């Protein structure tokens, strides 16, 4: 049987083939770099030793058991969920409203307002944290859950608006015109046409806001008061005390939760138009 030569392979000089192998090896190694720390972290959450070193001492679930009976972590989890849910709820409504105005209407002062809407995204966390802390101290709002929620809404609005506006920008206005031709008034057009079509974008924005709120450390750290510790704050204070396998277990649970949220949000966005937007 004659061996068939790949014409492409004949044209490709040997030197370039090596280049291609190096590129592939580099690509694969980069993914190892991205995932190795996470995998190591998860592996050592199952390690039967009080000390997290590079040595393996056998499999155990005891650190997860300890996690679920830890009262401080339970309280932090409740705070985190409460804060994130309230912040997400408010910022999703505000963000969707402002998106409709920005994409549909022209008005006086739109440009500077657009800039104001983007600023919370690009400003460094630490700067936003500092200015909110100063503000709350000056106007004498006691630091606690309320100040955390206020701060989270302030940055969540911008992220919700970005996602919803992207969705609105690719919206087919002929559908709304068709509804109006069929004698739907403004409200009915919005309720039965615009809103359902916009829903995947709104949900994706809400999930993004929820993830950001749940994960935020720096801004929460500055605007938290006594008794309002969230999960990231709890992890931080535990890490400051020293590395323990319980932190690994807690981290592994948080990683899993974030993974699920991301997969859910990608799935939601895919449900709309088959295109996935990566921020």
């Amino acid at each position: 049987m004659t061996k068939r030569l790949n014409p492409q392979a004949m044209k490709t000089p040997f030197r370039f083939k090596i280049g291609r192998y190096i590129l592939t090896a580099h690509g694969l190694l980069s993914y190892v770099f991205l995932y190795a720390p996470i995998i190591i972290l998860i592996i050592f959450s199952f390690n039967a030793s009080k000390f997290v070193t590079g040595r393996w001492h056998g499999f155990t679930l005891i650190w997860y058991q300890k996690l679920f009976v830890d009262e401080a972590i339970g309280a932090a989890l409740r705070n985190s969920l409460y804060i994130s849910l309230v912040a997400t709820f408010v910022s999703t409504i505000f963000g969707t409203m402002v998106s409709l105005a920005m994409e549909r209407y022209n008005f006086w002062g739109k440009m500077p307002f657009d800039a104001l809407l983007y600023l919370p995204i690009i400003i460094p966390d630490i700067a936003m944290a500092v200015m909110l802390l100063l503000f709350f101290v000056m106007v004498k709002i006691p630091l606690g859950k309320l100040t955390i929620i206020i701060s989270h809404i302030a940055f969540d609005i911008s992220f919700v608006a970005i996602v919803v506006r992207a969705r609105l920008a690719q919206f087919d206005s002929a559908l709304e015109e068709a509804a109006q031709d069929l004698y739907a008034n403004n409200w009915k057009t919005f309720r039965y046409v615009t809103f359902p079509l916009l829903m995947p974008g709104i949900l994706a924005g809400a999930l993004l806001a929820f993830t950001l709120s749940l994960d935020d450390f720096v801004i929460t750290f500055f605007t938290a008061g006594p008794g309002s510790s969230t999960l990231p704050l709890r992890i931080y204070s535990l890490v400051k005390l020293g590395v323990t396998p319980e932190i690994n277990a807690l981290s592994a649970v948080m990683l899993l939760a974030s993974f699920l949220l991301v997969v859910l949000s990608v799935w939601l966005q895919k449900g709309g138009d088959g295109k996935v937007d990566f921020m």
Partner: protein
Amino acid sequence: MNKNKRKQWRVFGLIFPSLFWLVVFFAIPLILVLAMSFGERGTYGGVIWNFNLENFARFFDFSDPLYLRIFGRTLYIAAITTLVSFLIGYPMAFWIASQPEKRRNSLLMMLMLPFWTNFLVRTYAWILILRDQGVINTIWAGHFHNAVVWLVAVLPGLPLDWLVQATSNPLPLFGTNLAIIIGLTYGWLPDMVLPCYAAIERFDGSLVEAAQDLYANRVQAFFRVIFPLTLPGVVAGSILVFIPSLGAYVTPDLLGGAKSVMIGNIIYSQFMSARDYPFGAAISFVLMALMLAGTLFYFRFTVAGQKGEPGHD
């Protein structure tokens, strides 16, 4: 006329909640910090609102360059982080872009997945790896050290004494600038890869053929055609890595040591321990000015880059 009024009210109603929130809880606090940076610390930790540039003079003091040195180190760490991210991220983006479409999407998804997990948790993972009792040093000063000692015992003639010496101590990784650079690169790598990928993916392959028709070899084709045309993506990615690296707080706090303090850490200590709010505000001011300059550069460059591109896509 009446309809127009109604429309105006509707727009106002849609905007008002966000406008109110962003003005009261963002713009006013921002102005407050900027104003306070020109103030002075009172005797009991309060603020005296007398306009002066004392805080900035203290920060940029060449005769006592304590803060200037931290400022320089922050710029240095952010620059190296950006460079390393580029060296890892650009070939990575190139590789992803050369994959079949289905795999490309999964690879992008896998790139973003760690990015959306908690930053603190990801930084903590690096503590486990880099610290003296960590994964790398358990291998280096444990397994590898034992292997070398065993080798020397079996074959006494080998000149490996220096290696026995070197492996008897853990590698100084944790608490150094290197650890911070690793942590920041890990944290912001996707921000470099995505814009590079977008630029490479949009790239018109027939331009390479044209270059080769003109007798350019592959190296020349890359450096004189592909790279210059994907440069806007590189610049965008660089800014997206550089800006958050400048403002880093968690990474230097957890992975760095006393000799690798960054701007973020001194802002924190001015507000939380020294209670010198005006000075902390002034340092934030400097940080925000840098960020703003970077962002303007970003928009300038990317918008100009898109305009200068040939009319494909």
